[in-house]
């Protein structure tokens, strides 16, 4: 795996963040390494009824039921044609554990916290990013996990429906 290095002058005295980077459709995303429990290969999921398409279903993670979210579908690029080469990141989101289906895991990088910039104002994915960081030539979009693994539809990706008589 290739090594990414933040500019030395920044790395010297800033707090560092360890980020796991992964790829979805030629884009690079990242999440804090502390949120990742494990990384496992794709396993066919049991679909759930009445859920938006980015909820791929549930799998058995050593006796625990784990809901898997398709990140590609989540950002509006269509459903992943999952193969055994695809990867499920098992992540902690608050009290829950969730699976995130991505194309491949790239690397673990150290970035200074100061290098993380706020996400651009125009977010097509309903505040799904918590920030961006530029590493060498590449833009790494840091995911806001709680928004990414939400079963509710994204406001501007899927049509909303009238909720129950309320």
């Amino acid at each position, binding site marked *: 795996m290739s090594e990414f290095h933040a500019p030395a002058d920044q790395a010297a005295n800033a707090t560092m963040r360890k980020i796991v980077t992964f790829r979805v459709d030629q884009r690079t995303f990242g999440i804090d390494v502390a949120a990742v429990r494990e990384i496992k290969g794709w396993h066919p999921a049991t679909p759930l*009824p009445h*859920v938006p398409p980015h909820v791929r279903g549930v799998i058995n993670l050593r006796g625990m039921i784990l*809901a898997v979210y398709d990140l590609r579908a989540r950002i509006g690029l269509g459903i992943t044609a999952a193969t055994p080469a695809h990867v499920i990141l098992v992540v902690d989101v608050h009290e829950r554990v969730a699976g995130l289906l991505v194309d491949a895991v790239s690397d673990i990088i150290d970035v200074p916290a100061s290098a993380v910039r706020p996400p651009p104002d125009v977010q097509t994915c309903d505040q799904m990013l918590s920030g961006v960081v530029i590493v060498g030539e590449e833009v790494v979009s840091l995911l806001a996990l709680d928004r990414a693994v939400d079963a509710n539809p994204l406001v501007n990706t899927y049509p909303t429906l009238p909720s129950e008589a309320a």
Partner: protein
Amino acid sequence: MDPMALLKQSFLEECDELLSALERCLQEMDTGATDTETVNAAFRAIHSIKGGAGAFGFTEIVPYAHGFEAALDLLRNGKVRVADAPLGLFLRTADAVGACVGAARSGQPAPQFPDLIEALRQFVSGGGAAAAAPVMPLAAAAAPEPPPVEAACGHHIRITPHDDLFRRLVEPPQILQSLETLGEPVLTCDVSAVPLLAALDPARCNLRFDVMLDSAATREQVEDVLERCFDADELAFISPAAPAVVSPPAVVMRGSADGMTGSVSGAAAATAGDEAMPAGSAGYEAAAVAAPAVSAGDSALAAARQLPLMSPLPDASGVVPTLKNRPAMVRTIRVDLDRVDRLMNLVGEIVITQSMLIDRSRDLPVLHALQLTEGIEALTRQTRELQDQVMAVRAQPVKTVFQRMPRVVRDLATMLGKQVRLATCGEDTEVDKTIIEELADPLTHMIRNALDHGLENPDERISAGKPVEGVVTLSAEQRGGRIVITIADDGRGLPRDKLLAKAISRGVMAADAKPSAAEIDALIFHAGLSTAEAVTDVSGRGVGMDVVKQNVEALGGRVTVESEPGKGCTFALSLPLTLAVADGMVVKVAGQRIIVPISSIMETLQIANCRPGSLPGGSEIVRLRGQVAPLIRLADLLELGGSGQETVVISAETDRGEIIGIAVDEILGQQQVVVKSLEASFGPVAGASAATILGDGMVALILDIDALPALVARRGQRPQPDQPVLVPHAA
């Protein structure tokens, strides 16, 4: 945690149990039980609390327990009739003790109820006066006690401790010392039962004490002191009439505080190696520690051995046991619930592994498969039994919750000025402990509602031609794989016009809606709709039934209401019997395996045999047992695609008694499944109550039969049936 803290904690836990036993007894008395055993049981409970509280230094509990005990004693010896007992005072005292226990647990200062202590004291002293004209003594039938030995002659008490005396952390010196507050005790210790060194178990108590107490104190006072440390059956008051045959004294000690210092173990250390300990002067210390001290050297044993043996016990008639009924030995242990949970999880894992084995055996050559099947069948039987047994460990009768309710009713009825009778049935129905624990709040709430809103005021009832006394019925029964708890009242029923008006004013329902009576009644579960005219202390804030509904649904249960204006209202909670393992039928629908709970299935039929048809409007129907039932194609309803392959109809009954036909492609088999919550990882899934893991490691959904009719109805209202529709999640 240090051992003492552990002991204290365990004592506080025990207090909870004792208090609940106490409250049960008081309730029995309230409902007219007058038998000696009830009073005795209450007495034992408060007595144990008092003893433990004293021993563990929870002194703030002692005054209430003491006063309570004294008051109950008047009942016990028949000086006051049970019917005349101040049960309100007793209940409040029990509460006060409970509050002190709670405070002790959280390390907060104990609340003070000086008025209670005073009230109890007055009752007790008044009771003494009432004794001049004694009523029918309670204990008369059981065991007529001879008149208490009175002051002038002093007391002779023989203490024959159980051999676990030392293990009880009891320190006899201190207790015996405290007798000095009553008079001058002369203590004799019989060491004849102490075995030879080789056979000696230092933790066993082989001692027996005789106390001659020259005191003006009454027998009750002496008992009071001694029972802090000894069980009632360890004490025997020997009436002076019987010949006191203690001769010559074994080890005699004239009560002086100095001689009785130190704990048993401390004394053991002190005397260890004290070779020249003369029998006469070794005094109490030697006697109290005779057992441990022997280990120090033969000479000590020799000293003990040389002591004259105790004479045989006097004639049995001279020995009066203070408490005839010793509490029955409870053969139970206390186990951390987490351990049982882990055990249950493990059983779940075994069930999954077992279905994996069954799956794999299908791939074997026939001969091998047959041999294996035999083993698997045995395993299946054993797993099932294992699971039943573990579940039985977790199961508790609903009585544990139900018994709190009479109190709620009693207090509330007084406050509201209504006459209410609470009838309960099916208290012995057993449910998983987790469910029991979660039931108390919803039940209390619904009972309060029934009393406050459901039942009319006495004059309203009279003018409606009803008996003044309202009846609230609380019942539990097992129905299939579920337990159904109903709370029914014979009051005015739900005020439908008010509910509807409120729902419309709050925008919950359209102004021109024409809901059915049942739909209006169901509004009671909607957040923010309370029909009480005024917010009272009791209820009326509109945060009631919707919370109940949430609580019950979180348990995998459902709550429904049936109401008849003027006749009353019935709430029914339907709960799963256990949260862990269920029997399921594995069916195939559009390539997916789905579990249908066996408990809801009535029969399975070929689709052609049940005359499928459709109603105008498109709803499909089938004939099941001569009835027309809706046909639900699971592939359609669960949006699995590929409907039209159905060959089998499963006829199932929901908890509301509706019969539905569920069309599936194929029935694959039947197996035990481990219920795994979907809520924990995802959230509620419409149509699936939970999920399970099959033998090949895949997850399968467990169908929520009871929710299907509503799901079908909602589906009918969809604007665009072919678009995926999101079911809103509970916020």
